[in-house]
């Protein structure tokens, strides 16, 4: 078991040692770095293949149909067929498009996605760069996607794209606020922004037990952040065709698709890291645990996509600013109080107090909601 547990870490040490025998140390380090980057990119491509297949299969099952089942066993090579189709398609640039911006956008949307992979702890010691500002880095990098998508929407010179681009900006900026606020609760508990330390901080108990509400807020905002159903307004098919990537075809379209799927996976992975204990878990090797948790959350994403209709833009913004942000602020305040009051009293009081506090917040929300609804009905009856 110990052999399997640290398989990839040992492998990298071994390769490094092997290289260091022939090459100067700096060259060996450089090659290791490049190798890691190559691994991450290959990993990303395999992930999108797997996720794409899984999503189509799972949603197919939700809808009482088979999903892809022609190419390869169980249709697993469907993505390869799709990729070949994408490569061979004509690459169209609309006559009136802003060529530079139009062609820049697909690249700009993919780059941050790959950058984010760098700080994900896939297993014990399995992180490309253990930044001490890991979470801040992720927030910063993921905001870059917003600009790229706005460029795509603006550069296409298409009204649907423009509407999609505008929606993206409104949505992603709004939902970043509750997302960061809810993650702050976790950071408060560990006292570190590094994702590795956050995972290590959950060796005794995953943070979802301490902050179930924080997890829910994070999860909802994260779905909105990556434009997944029910918050997929920027590419709302039934309203604005395909939103910001209406005018893209062939490889450029594939880039958007790639970025979208990997972003969705990364968001699930970060949720698993922040709240579900990342690679921590008994018996199985750490990296297996990490993927189990990430895919479990991704499954919920697919589930939502297969079930729920879409919100409207004003309702979406209302949900963020009128509900999630205040709730996240209250949650942050209460969790801070709880953490301070139970400091040094051991684990059990902390868990108990956190759960009670979360229960109280939920109860307060329910009571306020019921009161507001009653008041509303009174007003309606009066009017």
């Amino acid at each position, binding site marked *: 078991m110990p052999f399997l547990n640290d398989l990839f870490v040992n492998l990298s040490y071994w390769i490094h040692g092997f290289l260091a025998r022939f090459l100067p140390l700096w060259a060996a380090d450089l090659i290791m770095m490049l190798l890691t980057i190559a691994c991450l990119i290959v990993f990303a491509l395999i992930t999108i293949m797997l996720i794409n297949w899984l999503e189509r299969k799972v*949603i197919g099952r*939700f*809808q*009482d*149909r088979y999903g892809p089942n022609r190419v390869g066993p169980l249709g697993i090579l469907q993505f390869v067929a799709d990729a070949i189709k994408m490569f061979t398609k004509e690459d169209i640039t609309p006559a009136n498009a802003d060529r530079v911006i139009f062609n820049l956008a697909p690249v700009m949307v993919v780059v941050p996605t790959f950058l984010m992979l760098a700080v994900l702890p896939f297993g014990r010691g399995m992180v490309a760069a253990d930044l001490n500002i890991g979470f801040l880095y992720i927030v910063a990098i993921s905001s870059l996607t917003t600009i790229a998508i706005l460029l795509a929407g603006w550069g296409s010179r298409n*009204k*649907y794209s423009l*509407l999609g681009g505008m929606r993206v900006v409104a949505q992603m900026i709004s939902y970043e606020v509750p997302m960061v606020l809810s993650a702050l609760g976790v950071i408060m508990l560990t006292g570190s922004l590094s994702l590795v330390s956050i995972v290590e901080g959950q060796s005794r108990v995953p943070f979802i037990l301490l902050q179930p509400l924080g997890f829910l807020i994070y999860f909802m905002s994260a779905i909105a952040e990556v434009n997944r*159903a*029910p918050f*997929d*307004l920027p590419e*709302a*098919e*039934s*309203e*604005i*065709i395909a939103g910001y990537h209406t005018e893209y075809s062939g490889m450029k379209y594939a880039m958007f698709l790639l970025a979208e799927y990997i972003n969705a996976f990364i968001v699930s992975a970060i949720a698993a890291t922040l709240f579900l204990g990342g690679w921590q878990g008994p018996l199985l090797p750490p990296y297996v645990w990490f993927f189990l948790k990430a895919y479990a959350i991704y499954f919920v994403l697919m589930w939502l*996509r*297969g*079930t*729920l*209709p*879409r*919100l*409207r*833009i*004003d*309702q979406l913004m209302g949900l963020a600013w009128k509900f999630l942000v205040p709730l996240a602020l209250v949650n942050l305040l209460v969790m801070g109080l709880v953490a301070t009051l139970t400091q040094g009293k051991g684990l059990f009081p902390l868990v108990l107090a956190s759960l009670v506090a979360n229960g109280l917040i939920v109860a307060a929300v329910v009571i306020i909601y019921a009161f507001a609804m009653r008041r509303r009905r009174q007003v309606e009856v009066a009017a």
Partner: protein
Amino acid sequence: MQTVETRLRTETITLNMGPQHPSTHGVFRMIITLDGETIVDLEPVMGYLHRCQEKIGERNTYLQNIPYTDRLDYICSMSNNLAYVMAVEKLAQIEVPERAEYIRIIMVELTRIVNHAVAIGALLNDLGCFFTPMLYALEERERILDLFEMASGSRMMCNYMRFGGVRYDLPPGFMPELKSVVAALPDFIDEFERLLTDNEIVRIRCQGVGILPPDVAVGYSCTGPLLRASGVDYDIRKVDSYSIYDRFDFDVPLGTNYDVYDRYLVRIGEMRQSVRILEQAIEQIPEGEVSVKLPRVFKPPEGDVYHRIESPKGELGFYLVSDGSTNPYRYKIRSPTFINLIVLPELCKGHKVADVVAILGSIDIVLGEVDR
């Protein structure tokens, strides 16, 4: 405040939605003037699927027109057949055998269930559901289409009704299959409702959207579920009963808030009522002839006639003028969705882009019938 408002110059944009668009249910086109995401003006453009149905109808003999009625509203070919056939029967005063009347009612009510299931599925697609309700609806539709295939040999373009009856008697094995389909229908509707009726997002997207007050609905001569969702108790099966509808016990569901959500609820309610009618029809259906003998060259007497039925989408009427020859002199179709669609700009103003497709979905159009 004032200075800020005057200095900020905003423009409206004109968005050309359709004729190629995922949720215009075919080739319908809307020219929308937008202020941000809010609709300022909407102009419907129809006619992309115009096929000269009415002119073709004058060229055809009376019998040849029946398959053309299949192609009007291709989701409910059975009720189109019925409306046309009954108009001709009224013109030529043909008596229909009892068993044929029952078979017709069974087919038409099955059609109503198909249409409403598909309409709700399409509405949910427009709301952004990723095909799940649509596919659930289509799954149930498959079973009903199998029944149509057993009876008429065709799934969608049934061409089943004839003047004075129906083309064939029900084949052996039809009734047991029909009974099992009808028995399974309430479960299907319940499942549909569990998925959608109390769904929070469906509610906030549909409630209070596209409100059509009763007086406006009547003013635009809307019919069908659209009118009944506006609280007007007007079902031609009740107010101007035709065929043998007076023998069945069923209710007319009405809306109270006049919005998209009510139209959804009215359709669900009508599906349940159709199941009730089907159950009664299965019990009462007699044995006997299914058609009357007509001369090979069918020439109705001179005169004109208008007959209307409650098709799943509203009042479907055929106006026929006969000059005593083998072809109708004038063949006019009063298509329910074309007239219901006229009210669309009224419903959409002030709403968001996303609501337009929801409202359009709730009107439930089929372009084959709108453009004819």
